[in-house]
């Protein structure tokens, strides 16, 4: 059904906003577009109120371009910076209460599975380090223990950006931040290992320096969740405001962190690996034809 609700009812084209008409005509609904074509098609998120030079905004833009099935995808977020852009996208977005994303997504995904057992309905959580690993920690972990079939993406800016720069569980040790007046006393939480231990079937860590790789990782995480179980991506998305990174240096910073502690890492179960090998073999055959 997805495409049906996106399409404009005949006769209404001239009354719909230009942006929406363009989105239906030139957007990614019902198509598989290459993320490298960004700029040549109408994107699902364009205007947003995030800070100039925000790398999280860039990551979210690539995220929407990478969705395998945007017309049948629901995104969930929580308080924090990410939802400022997520709520502006042309994909249904659920904004609940503080840190509740993975519990809400559990209920939502189960309801959709009851109501549409034969349809693909992708559910994706995108929330920050505070939302997923601090306030929502229990719900994040338990959604993984329960093997809920949706994707969790942590956009880690290593700080509570939206509330004004407080320490989070993902801030680096020693750093002086608000609510850490003498510097943070403990290490960054190892979210990737927690995800593996808790039962995620696909886990990745990424610094968004290469759009093609971001898109592939997101696509894999969503497809694996659709078929096998919970999946998790830990993405470094710097806060150029709280960490005082000049706008023109955010990419250089992402590259620097990629070399230090955000080296691309991808892990999946054997079952998921076989699935992608088979899928990618088929895709190559399609291209040859």
């Amino acid at each position, binding site marked *: *059904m*997805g495409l*049906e*609700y996106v399409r404009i009812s005949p006769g209404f084209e001239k009354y719909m906003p230009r942006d929406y008409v363009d989105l239906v005509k030139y957007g990614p609904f019902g198509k598989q577009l290459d993320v490298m074509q960004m700029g040549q098609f109408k994107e699902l998120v364009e205007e947003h*109120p995030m800070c100039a030079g925000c790398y999280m905004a860039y990551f979210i833009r690539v995220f929407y371009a990478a969705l395998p099935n945007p*017309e*049948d*995808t*629901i995104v969930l977020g929580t308080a924090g910076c990410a*939802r*400022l852009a997520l*709520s*502006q996208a042309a994909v*249904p*977005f*659920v*904004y*609940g*209460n*503080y840190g*509740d994303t993975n*519990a*809400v*997504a*559990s*209920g*939502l*995904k*189960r*309801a*959709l*599975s*009851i*109501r*549409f057992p034969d349809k693909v*309905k992708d559910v994706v959580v995108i929330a920050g380090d505070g939302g997923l690993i601090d306030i929502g920690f*229990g*719900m994040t*972990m*338990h959604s993984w223990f*329960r093997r809920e079939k949706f994707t969790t993406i942590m956009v880690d800016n290593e700080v509570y950006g939206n509330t004004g720069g407080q320490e989070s569980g993902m801030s680096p040790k020693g750093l002086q931040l608000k609510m850490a007046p003498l510097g943070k006393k403990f290490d960054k939480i190892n979210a990737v290992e927690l995800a593996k231990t808790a039962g995620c079937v696909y886990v990745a860590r990424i610094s968004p320096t290469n759009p093609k790789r971001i898109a592939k990782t997101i696509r894999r995480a969503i497809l694996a969740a659709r078929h096998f179980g919970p999946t998790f991506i830990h993405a470094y998305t710097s806060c150029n405001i709280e960490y005082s990174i000049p706008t023109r240096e955010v990419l250089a910073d992402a590259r620097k962190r990629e070399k230090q502690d955000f080296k691309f890492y991808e892990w999946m179960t054997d079952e998921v690996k076989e699935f992608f090998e088979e899928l990618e073999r088929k895709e190559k055959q399609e291209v040859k034809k």
Partner: protein
Amino acid sequence: MPEQRVVEPEYLILEAPRERKFITGSQAFAEAVKRANVDIAIAYPITPQSETMHLVGDLYAQGYIKDYYRAEEEYGAMSAIAGAVRGGARAFTATSGPGLLRGLEAIVSWPGHRIPAVLGIMTRVVNAPLSIQPDNVEIAYLLNSGLIVFHAENQQDVFDFTLAGFVISEKVDVYLPVVVATEGFFVTHAKGYVDLPPEDMKLPPRDPYKAPVPPTDCEIPPARIQRDAPVQKSNFMSYLIHAVWQQEIWSANRRAVKWIKHYLGGLIEVVNPDAEVFIVASGCAAAQGREAQRYATMEGLNVGLVKIKSLRPFPTNELREVLKNAKTVIVPEHNIVGWLAKEVKAAIPNSGIVVDGPRVYGGMTLPVELIMDEIYKAFGIKKERKTVV
């Protein structure tokens, strides 16, 4: 499990033949859920609620419910209920005292998110010192959030309020969550007679498209309010959106009145409407008030009872009408703060006639004698009381 056929709510609730059973309040909750065509139930343990969700789990195992799981804790359970209902499912959960307060942030946002669901509450002491007994102060926390709140006197009420709760909750002009509260142990773990319609009948399934706020399922354009929080607008838009949305929730809460009258026979029940002295009570206190009214009548005293079934919407007009000639209004309660006495005082123009009590708290039983003492005082009767130490 018997093959269940779908029947109209009017038939199942109001007309179907009923058979009398002797069951606990927990069983009464489960019997209602069994006939409510529930898609998903989400459970988390806490005494005295747990037994209800055990029984609901058995219903899932037998095939009456399509999905069921034990959540991580109440905040997670209540958030998942919101997710499931947004996804178009009909959902049920239940909790008690501290569990209710743990889940409260999620629960009090259900009306704003327009989440039609049914939440069972089996009251239990909150705050310290710890106890598992059925003090009902927790109900006070629910009264100012837009939820519809019913308070069941006995096992029969539990069944009737819960089954009707699903129907009222999903009415297009209501579309709010319904709470069915009752006293833990006194009702949940004690047996009473309950007249039940046949178990091979169930309500029609939820139609999530018959809704003022559509589901988020990629089958229909989503509601903008659910995705786009007013906080990210200008301050002016933020005030405005929140204000009009909350006004609509409270209007919807009022609009439930006609459905409560239709399915449950009214917001209140009145015994002896021409009385001089009234007992006004809800839940288990109404059961004790009923006994006191009976004793008083046997003694030739003109005493009436107003049982409040629906705390939200609150029966303000009904109380004003019934109590217009009352000399004294006695409000017995199972909590220390007297939330019902405050509600009654605020509802009637002559609040001076309201006696603040009697109250018991900590979950102890409410002896009928305490209510009788207030009745004697109201009639100026002096009684000698023997105290045996």
